[in-house]
């Protein structure tokens, strides 16, 4: 219940805005949502777990003043980033090997197809048993969840490598490893970066879930604590923070994608225009 609402928040809260017009429209929509909330909180839903907008803002101000909040937020971001980083590193390395060696590709395809759809939350009990409610547990879950999109995208990108480019490199005496590093990898960049973006969007969510459900330290656990203690204003303030951070996270990844792929047809058209 709580998980799904958090899951949805970064995705639907605010989609990427383009141009000032969309910004204005977006701002109006936000104001309407806040107004509806306020009316509900003061009227029919008063007294329930729905504090007023003012109360939530107060909770937010309180949070921001607390050192523990910042260390929790840092913990969550670290979990997400370290897990994502490890996933990208191993996903790309593994993907290049799987993608370039035909025999390995064909023999591992089924395994990957089976493992890919298993959500990280399902493996949590096992990981929790092994690592306990620790940061490592969270990092591992993020790693597990992020590995598949990166791996699958890398394999696709490697297999998409242009044979003319490869022949060109070979004719200039590039060996296997050199071709992998200097031709195949940059050529697969568009695929890989897309994988990283998908993984990145999941990384923050998984980090929060591992804390909320698994008890790893971070704002997810703070949310759980606030909810249990009935500190609703603080709870919603935390949800708001998650939304903002999730959005910032995805925006950062989007910018990274643009920077990495400035040469790629998907990006460069916008640059030229």
């Amino acid at each position, binding site marked *: 219940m709580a998980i799904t609402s958090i899951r949805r928040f970064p995705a639907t809260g605010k989609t990427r805005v383009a141009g000032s017009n969309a910004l204005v429209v977006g701002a109006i929509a936000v104001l309407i949502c806040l107004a509806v909330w306020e009316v509900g909180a003061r009227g029919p839903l008063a007294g329930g777990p729905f504090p007023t907008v003012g109360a939530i803002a107060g909770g937010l101000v309180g949070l921001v003043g607390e050192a523990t909040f910042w260390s929790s937020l840092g913990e969550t971001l670290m979990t997400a980033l370290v897990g994502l980083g490890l996933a990208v590193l191993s996903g790309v390395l593994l993907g290049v090997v799987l993608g370039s060696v035909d025999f390995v590709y064909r023999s591992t395809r089924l395994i990957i197809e089976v493992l890919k759809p298993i959500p990280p939350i399902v493996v949590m009990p096992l990981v929790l048993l092994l690592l306990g409610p620790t940061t490592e547990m969270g990092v591992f879950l993020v790693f597990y969840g992020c590995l598949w999109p990166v791996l699958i995208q890398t394999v696709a990108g490697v297999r998409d490598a242009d044979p003319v480019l490869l022949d060109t490199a070979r004719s200039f005496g590039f060996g296997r490893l050199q071709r992998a590093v200097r031709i195949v990898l940059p050529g697969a960049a568009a695929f890989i970066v897309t994988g990283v973006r998908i993984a990145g969007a999941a990384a923050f969510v998984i980090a929060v879930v591992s804390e909320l459900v698994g008890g790893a330290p971070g704002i997810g656990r703070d949310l759980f604590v606030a909810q249990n203690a009935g500190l609703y204003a603080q709870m919603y303030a935390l949800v708001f923070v998650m939304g903002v951070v999730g959005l910032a996270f995805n925006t950062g990844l989007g910018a990274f994608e643009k920077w990495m792929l400035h*040469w*790629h047809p998907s990006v460069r058209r916008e640059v030229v225009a």
Partner: protein
Amino acid sequence: MMTGVMTEASIPEQTDQRLVIEELRKTYGTGAAAKVVLDGLNFDVRSGEFVCIVGPSGAGKTTLLKCLAGLLPPTSGASYLDGIQIDGPPEKLALVFQEYTRSLMPWLTVEKNVTLPLSNKGISKRERRTRAQEALEAVGLADVPSKYPWQLSGGMQQRVAIARALAYQPEVLMMDEPFASVDAQTRFELEDLTLRVREQFGITIVLVTHDIDEAVYLADRVVVLGSAPAQVREIIDVDVTSPRDQVKTKADPRFTELRSRVFELIRAR
């Protein structure tokens, strides 16, 4: 050189022959699906010579060039570069493909594209830049080193590919239908550029084309291939005066005569 069946170990006699192609056969696939593409080719290329290989589409020209460039092992027979059997990409050789959009790295600038193959040769960074500048100058692109290939026209991209091959300082330059995808005006320019480059760098050039005019215009000798399975129909000495000129050479009666001859050879059977 004496013709006749040679044993595997025998090495062609030393002459000014740069490339020797002996009974070169290439079959794609095996068993019932086997398809013979090159059916026992014999010819040679002399040092400093410009040889054009002309044949209809699907004749096996690309296959032949890939075999000569060491990218594809022949099914039987062999080719030799300076007496050494080609069994992998030789260092003395550079290749220019038809598909310039696909043979340049879109993530690298023009200059980086040109210097990329040099990183392999143990050449200092400064030397690499100098070579890139010289090569880009030779193809008339001295002013675009920091542009990306996709910001250039097709003809300019192919110039970059040629510059990259030149910077590699090969002794033999092989080109696979390098001007087939550019407009006619650009093609003439690039043809003359190739002739100039050959004078300037003194390299041996093997150029594959389906364009008879182009073959006769550029070549010292034209190797005419029949349709698949390809065999050498004839090797024609192009005895028109050099330097070539797009207007004068093509108006030369001898040029017209040779062009008709090649046309008839290709059309035969």
